[in-house]
Structures are given as structure tokens and as C-alpha cells.
């Protein structure tokens, strides 16, 4: 019972943090809109079902320090990175929705939000030789 109680308590905290995140994200989104001309195409900063989705387009050169494949966008939900991949046909999958394809990173991130039901993403762990 201890474990369940602790998890429920953590869930409550995460909910409170999410509420704080909405206010911050809304303000940020407004600021982004006002200088849209300088924002790289593919940049997303939105609140969806109470969760903040941030998408930064890939650089193509792989020099942005991420540990995933070069050229892929960095997708974050409430600041936690979502592992994403692009299929050869241009569709997208993530580690949360791995067996179902999505047309673009935004719909992929929104699907992850729906699937998470308020839970936070775990830290990304890469490496095929686990």
C-alpha cells in the first residue's frame, strides 16, 4: 500500500506542475507568434490537453548535441524528451506509439500526450546493446 500511496502523491504533484506549465507555455506561445518570421519551420510550442509540447526541428548536421539520429526534430512533452523516428515513407513513430504511424511530429506528440494520461516520460535510454 505504501507504494501505491506514494505514486498517487507523485501524481498529484505532477498535476499541479502541469497547471503551472500551462500558464508559462501560453505566454511563450504568444511570444512565439509575434516573431513567427524568425522561427524555423517546424517549430512547435503548444499546450495540448494540459501538456506542453515543444518541437525543435532537426538541424540536418547532427551538431546539436542530441543523442539521436541527426536531422530528427527534438520533441519534448513537459520538458521531457520523447524518442521519435521517421519512417522511410515520411511518417513518424515514437517510443510511446511504436507500432502506429503518424503524419507529422505534432500529431505524434499529441498521440503521446493522450497515451500518457498525465504521466511523465521516463528519461531516454539509448543503445541497442542493452
Amino acid at each position, binding site marked *: 500500500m505504501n507504494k501505491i500511496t506514494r505514486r498517487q502523491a507523485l501524481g498529484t504533484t505532477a498535476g499541479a506542475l502541469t497547471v503551472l506549465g500551462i500558464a508559462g507555455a501560453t505566454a511563450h506561445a504568444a511570444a512565439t507568434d509575434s516573431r513567427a518570421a524568425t522561427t524555423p519551420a517546424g517549430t512547435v510550442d503548444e499546450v495540448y490537453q494540459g501538456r506542453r509540447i515543444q518541437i525543435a526541428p532537426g538541424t540536418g548536421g547532427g551538431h546539436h548535441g542530441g543523442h539521436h539520429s541527426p536531422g530528427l526534430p527534438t520533441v519534448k512533452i513537459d520538458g521531457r524528451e520523447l*524518442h521519435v523516428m521517421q519512417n522511410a515513407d515520411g511518417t513518424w513513430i515514437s517510443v510511446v506509439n511504436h507500432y502506429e504511424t503518424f503524419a507529422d511530429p505534432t500529431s505524434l506528440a499529441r498521440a503521446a500526450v493522450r497515451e500518457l494520461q498525465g504521466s511523465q516520460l521516463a528519461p531516454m535510454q*539509448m543503445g541497442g546493446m*542493452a
Partner: protein
Amino acid sequence: MTVRKNQAALTPEEKRAFTNALLELKRTGRYDRFVTTHNGFIMSDTDSGDRVGHRSPSFLPWHRRFLLEFEAALQAVDASVSIPYWDWTADRTTRSSLWAADFLGGTGRARDGQVMDGPFAYATGKWEVAVRVDGRNYLRRALGEGVAQLPTKAEVDAVLAMPVYDMAPWNSSSNGFRNNLEGWRGANLHNRVHVWVGGQMATGVSPNDPVFWMHHAFIDKLWADWQAKHPTSTYLPAAGTANVVDLRDTMRPWNDVTPADMLDHRKFYTFDTEPAAAASQR
């Protein structure tokens, strides 16, 4: 010789032996290492780079080897156990005995997807999801919610009729048997079943749900069925192909096994649909 049986035909004792062996592997931590391995490959197998476990020709031999290792671990607990297969063309509703409390338990509750009955319900204290993509440590399912229908027998038969194993570019955009079975193309067989079950099964850590093994045992059987139907067709590519595992290349993470080693399942087990005597002679 191990015989893999249709899960619908298992006796109550066989079901209990299987689930007890799963719980024991979970207790010792052995189970979670399989989950970690699978997710590592899920995240590193890419259409344009090295790919071994998924979206590539070695999807089938890789999972055959993965299941063999898992089955050996189960049998170290209980030598009578084998991995049952789930024929989702036949047992295709949430009311199937597969999802009963005396076997895998049922779908998750509406509020959070948590599976509440059966041996893998969180409240039993024996099945904490440790290798995960998010904070939730309980087994989740949403049977029939991500997609309404499981693949049909007719859809499976259409894929089994495809004569060529795999084709360039040897990834998720390929035509051929392997990719139509994996589900990135065509009717969508294997992938759709993961989505139909939902919860962890829809994620990179899908082996957290024990039904993963029974789903893949059926995918494995479909490969064997395809081989029997097309005796002159073979694994492709043969040699010299960038980023993918050719017939006689070794597969990570084992590095000592090739697709060629995995082609004949009868070296390791038979299915309950095959006559055992005939199998040993072939």
C-alpha cells in the same frame, strides 16, 4: 522436444505453469532484461541505418532467437513449459479465455488503463513494470481501443500467399512477405495486434505484457507456415547488403547466430499443428 501449443487449447494446469514461470522470471529480474533488450533495438533500428530486430529482413529470425532465449529461461524454471501461441485470427475478442483471470487477466480499467485481474495485476505485488517509457509502473491494456479489429484469417492468407520473402530497400517501405507480416505495409498484421492490445504493448517496452510472447509465437508460426507454402522461397537478402543482416551475417546482440541458423524451427521446437514424427524426419 518442445511443442508450442495454441493458447486456447491449454489445460488449466498448463496455463498455471506458464504464468508461474513468468512470475518467477519477473521475481529474479531476468524478465526485465528481455524488456530492456527489446526496447534498445526498437529505438536503434532505423530505416536508413543499421537495423536488426525490426523493420528489416531479420525481424523474423531475430524474434525467433529472442523467443528461444526466453523459452529457455522459462524452461529453466519449469521444464514442462513452452511459449503458447495466440492465434488472433480465431481468438479475436476481449471475451477470449486468453484474457480471463486464470490466464493473462483482462483489459485495463477506464481511468488509467490498469489491468485489475489475473496474475499480472499490479495489486498482486508480483508484476511491477520496471522498464518503462513513462512513470506508470503497472501493467496497462486497452483491448480493442487503439484499433477496433484484429487481423482476419483472410488478411493473413493474403500475406502468406506472397512468394518473395523481402525486397529492397529492406526496411519499413519494402514490399514482400516480411514487411506485410510485420505490418508497415498492406493489411498490417503484427503491428496492428500490438496497437489492438494497447498499454505497454503499443510501446517500445511491449514485452512487459506477457501476451507479447504469445503474439510473437504466432508471428513465428506464420513464418513457418509461409515456408511450408513456398518451399523454394528463401530468406533474403543473400549477401553484401548495407545496414541489414544478410543470410549468413550474425545478429546483434548475440553475435553468434545468423538468419540461416534460424530458418528451420524444427531444430528447436514444433507446433501442435505439426505431426511430431514427421517433424523429426524432415
